[in-house]
């Protein structure tokens, strides 16, 4: 029986890799140590004094970055891998302690005063440099979050949702613009081959930011909601066809679902406007539209697979 042969592939006396187990323990250790130190400092802040704490955080930041600089091979625009198991954690530790340092001096000594822009701009620049120089996706995510903070948005898309921060017109516009900028960054990194593997992170942040802001706009601007809808659908179509070209299932599904939310809003809204609103009708709409969307996804999946086959 063939299955038994293939089973032997898995069970035959093989070398057992403890890669993920050991790395998980390392990560837990870093987490525990930093949390413990944080609590210790917090409890003894009166006896230690702010300067000593700040000096210590600065020392940790510098030491981490120094360690990384020593380990990293010469810079290039491709993906670089470092064999040292501590490297990734050192980059992350350096970036996080840098952010803590900036936050600390701003909170305690008000160094930047009311120039919050500067307080977020400086770490953002450092984080972007670190992300590119050390080739670190975690640092890149931190940098993008910082960029969003700098551009005037609370933080990540999730918190925008949770905070119910749908109201402010300025925020909606900035969110959409920033989403477009990030999508462009992603596009450029991939076609110019400037750290091409950063593309996914940029596009992911950009896509969610753009659609959440655009949906917020759709909900807010009642009078011209059809124009918003048209623009949103147009961009969804553009991004969707681009994702289709790159055969990215993830982006296609996300875009389809966002577009579906927008469509459902418009349909329900028009039902209310033209006073044909009834629960039966709403439920009917969702049954039919969800089925239709499911068929559409199945169709897209088939097209993409066919395309896949042609490419091979």
């Amino acid at each position, binding site marked *: 029986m063939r299955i038994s042969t293939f089973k032997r592939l898995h069970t035959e006396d093989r070398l057992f890799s403890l890669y993920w*187990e050991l790395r998980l323990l390392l990560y837990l250790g870093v987490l525990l140590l930093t949390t413990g130190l944080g609590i210790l400092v917090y409890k003894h802040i009166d006896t230690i004094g702010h300067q000593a704490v700040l000096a210590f955080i600065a020392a940790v930041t510098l030491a981490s970055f120094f360690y990384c600089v020593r380990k990293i091979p010469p810079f290039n625009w491709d993906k670089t891998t470092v064999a040292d198991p501590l490297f990734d954690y050192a980059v992350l530790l350096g970036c996080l302690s840098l952010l803590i340092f900036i936050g600390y001096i701003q909170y305690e000594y008000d160094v930047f005063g009311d120039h919050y822009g500067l307080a977020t701009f400086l770490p953002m620049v450092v984080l972007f440099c670190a992300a590119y120089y050390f080739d670190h996706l975690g640092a890149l995510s931190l940098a993008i979050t910082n960029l969003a903070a700098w551009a005037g948005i609370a933080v990540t898309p999730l918190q925008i949702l949770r905070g119910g921060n749908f109201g402010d017109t300025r925020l909606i516009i900035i969110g959409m613009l920033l989403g477009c900028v990030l999508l462009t960054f992603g596009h450029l990194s991939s076609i110019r081959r400037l750290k091409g593997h950063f593309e996914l992170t940029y596009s992911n942040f950009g896509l969610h930011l753009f659609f959440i802001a655009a949906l917020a706009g759709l909900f807010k601007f009642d009078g011209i909601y059809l124009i918003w809808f048209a623009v949103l659908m147009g961009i969804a179509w553009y991004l969707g066809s681009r994702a289709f070209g790159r055969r990215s*299932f993830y982006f296609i599904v996300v875009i*389809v679902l966002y577009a579906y939310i927008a469509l459902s809003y418009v349909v329900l809204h028009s039902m209310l406007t033209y006073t044909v609103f009834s629960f039966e009708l709403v439920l009917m709409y969702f049954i039919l539209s969800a089925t239709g969307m499911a068929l559409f996804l199945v169709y897209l999946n088939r097209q993409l697979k066919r395309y896949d086959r042609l490419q091979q």
Partner: protein
Amino acid sequence: MIAYNSESLDNLAIQQDAAEALKRAVITPEEYEQIRQAHPVRLYTPNFFVRIGLIVLTVVAVVCGAGLFLLLTMGPSDRGIGTILIFFGISCYVVLELFVHLRRFFRAGVDDALIWMAGSLIFGGIYFVDGNMSAVTGSWILVVLAGWGALRYADRVMTLVAYGALISAVYHMVLDDVAFGSAILPFVIMAVSVVAYLVATPLALAEAGRHYRSCLLLLRMAALVTFYLSGNFYVAQKINASIHGETAIVPLGWLWWGLTCIVPVFYILAGLRRKDAILLWTGMGLVAAAIGTIRYYYHLLPAEWAMIFGGIILIAGAYGLIRYLRVPKEGFTSAAPDEPHVLETLHVESLAVAEALQSVAQPLDQGKGFGGGSGGGGGASGTY
């Protein structure tokens, strides 16, 4: 019993193994394509993200369908609602079977959602019909429903639900119906866990259980966890407190403390000795549970110092082991599982190629696959 074509499932497993071998570059794309052709899969499984999208959309459609159905046939009584829910759940099940049989859906999102929705709707309906159902009856109904979902569709979620419901049924039966139930409860749960583990472990490796492998691995993990929990001091104390009051002294306290601390260590050691990832990972997770239990009752050290010392020990230990195992020792390595030298002990290529050639009907140039000796690489692709 399983709803899917057995041969297609076998071929799917072969294709997945071949894809993994291709990814690690131990077989050539041509060999991979031969294996694919020789083992066709006649099941519809879309991309993973499409599957998630389909789950969301199906749940929306089914929930709205049930809502519409309730709205149109609204009766005054709970019993009426229950009957409608059961009817709708059975309809979902029929649709599911149609999808599986006519469209060959397999882990396609629509079928996942329909399995879960059918189960929940039928269970919810029964609950409405029988307003004062006892916990034992409810658990057994759930065991039957989820067990059927697990057996027929090899659904992993349903496997866990069925096992959880089984434990719940045993728990309530022992507490309610057995004299001195609370005294023997932990041992009964332990016995159930041991039986589940002893059934699932060989079955996961056996040929008969091959389609249920991922379910059985989850079941093993669940059995290990319930065994641990039934001997954990915190659980013992809380159950004792719920019966005799918060201040009651826990009988056999030393035994629960011993089990709390020893079982995770035992899991880890057994996992390492047998090179069994499930035992190892469950043990690692349960060490955290053991530490949490100890800290809940005894404050040996202030939390921050415990964290600092624990963190230092973990970092030093893990870093030391990573360095030490860089060169494999005693069959263990700290290298990533897909790094090439991990595979050197696996004769993937010889096995895979032998398989492919053995089952391809049309005559192949026999020299191609075997003649290359080590590679099968350059020469093979050149002739295509």
